[in-house]
């Protein structure tokens, strides 16, 4: 179980570029707001650089350099071009400006869900948004497989603590909890569910950290 911040092993897989897109998104959303974890990733990126430096080298030809030069010379200005800034965040690209006005599906009591798995073509995990109405409670439940969750809006609390916006949580089947949305906003989370191998392609019901 990981709470509030991703653990070093996940950050290492992120830094190595080995995470699936939905998992990388959860980490990136957290990094955008957490300078502590950003600094951990910087260090891990340096580890990657040192690993690359210590591996064998494969010679490159001078003609390859020439073709690189002709590529950069064919660019409009011939000079380094600053990528357009500001950029829209990944979250806005995926979900637009207003999380509250998404086509939520009311599930049980205070809980609404929206499956956005189809925004990640070719990925194996299920990706789900959940919304727990302000002050609302979700029934007690446990988790199947491993769920990575990041809080996008508002906050929720369970017996282990309070999870605020941009907090990161990994829950497994050993974690039973009974979350409550705290504060005056609806609590919205993004969850990535590692699909149990046996069930690939046969999900019939929503799996999420609020309700199972």
């Amino acid at each position, binding site marked *: 179980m990981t709470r509030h911040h991703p653990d070093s*092993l996940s950050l290492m897989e992120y830094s190595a570029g080995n995470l699936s897109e939905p998992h990388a998104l959860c980490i990136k959303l957290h990094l955008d707001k957490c300078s502590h974890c950003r600094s951990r990733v910087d260090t891990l*990126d*340096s580890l990657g650089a*040192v690993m*690359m430096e210590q591996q064998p080298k494969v*010679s490159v*030809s001078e003609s*390859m350099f020439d073709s690189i030069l002709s590529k950069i010379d064919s660019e409009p200005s011939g000079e380094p071009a600053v990528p357009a800034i500001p950029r829209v965040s990944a979250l806005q690209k995926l979900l637009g400006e207003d999380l509250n006005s998404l086509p939520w599906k009311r599930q049980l009591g205070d809980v609404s869900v929206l499956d956005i798995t189809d925004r990640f073509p070719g990925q194996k995990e299920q990706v789900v948004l959940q919304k727990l109405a302000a002050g609302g409670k979700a029934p007690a439940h446990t988790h199947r497989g491993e769920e990575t969750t990041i809080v996008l809006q508002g906050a929720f609390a369970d017996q282990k603590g309070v999870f605020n916006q941009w907090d990161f949580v990994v829950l497994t089947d050993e974690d039973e909890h009974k979350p409550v949305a705290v504060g005056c906003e609806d609590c919205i989370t993004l969850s990535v569910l590692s699909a149990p191998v046996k069930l690939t392609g046969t999900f019939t019901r929503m799996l999420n950290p609020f309700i199972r």
Partner: protein
Amino acid sequence: MTTLDKKPASSEGRKDPWSQMLQKVGKNQDREAYHALFEHFGPQIKYYAMANGLASHAEELVQEVFVSIWRRSCLYDWRKAAASTWIFTIARNQRIDMLRKMQRTSAEMPVETEDLWQIPGENENEPVTSLHRLMSERRIRESLSHLPEEQITVIAKVYMENKSHQMVADELDIPLGTVKSRVRLALNKLKVILQDQNV
């Protein structure tokens, strides 16, 4: 062409030589510096591509990485990342991007690689810090030489062969828990695991 053996003599100074060269590329479009970077990092990136299962696209990846280095060099800030760290993240992102494009079906990807994997020092409005960042490569290089081989093997597979901890466990035929504890031990030694007390 022979590979350059010279390494940054020391990171003790404020800037290592590669970071100085990268800065010259960014500021003055210095092609001599750019060529020196190519000679030093090109062979590393080519091996990286091959280890990652991109053998038939290795040269293409090296080219993509260097075009990207040229384009972005004006954003490079040596105070935020050493050149080798910055270049590693560009190589990683280009590798991810290449694999995504190969696997892309008719469906478009709504999110770009760069939206998911950050390049250090870009799009950050935070104050420049961190002697820590500059020191870290030297520290890592030094501590790595004291790690047991089995720990280095696991880390190398994760970074160089694009393997998850689970895949490394399967390949080495050892439990996932053993892989994780080797990584944790190594990261502890490398002081990559930062304490949570400041949070």
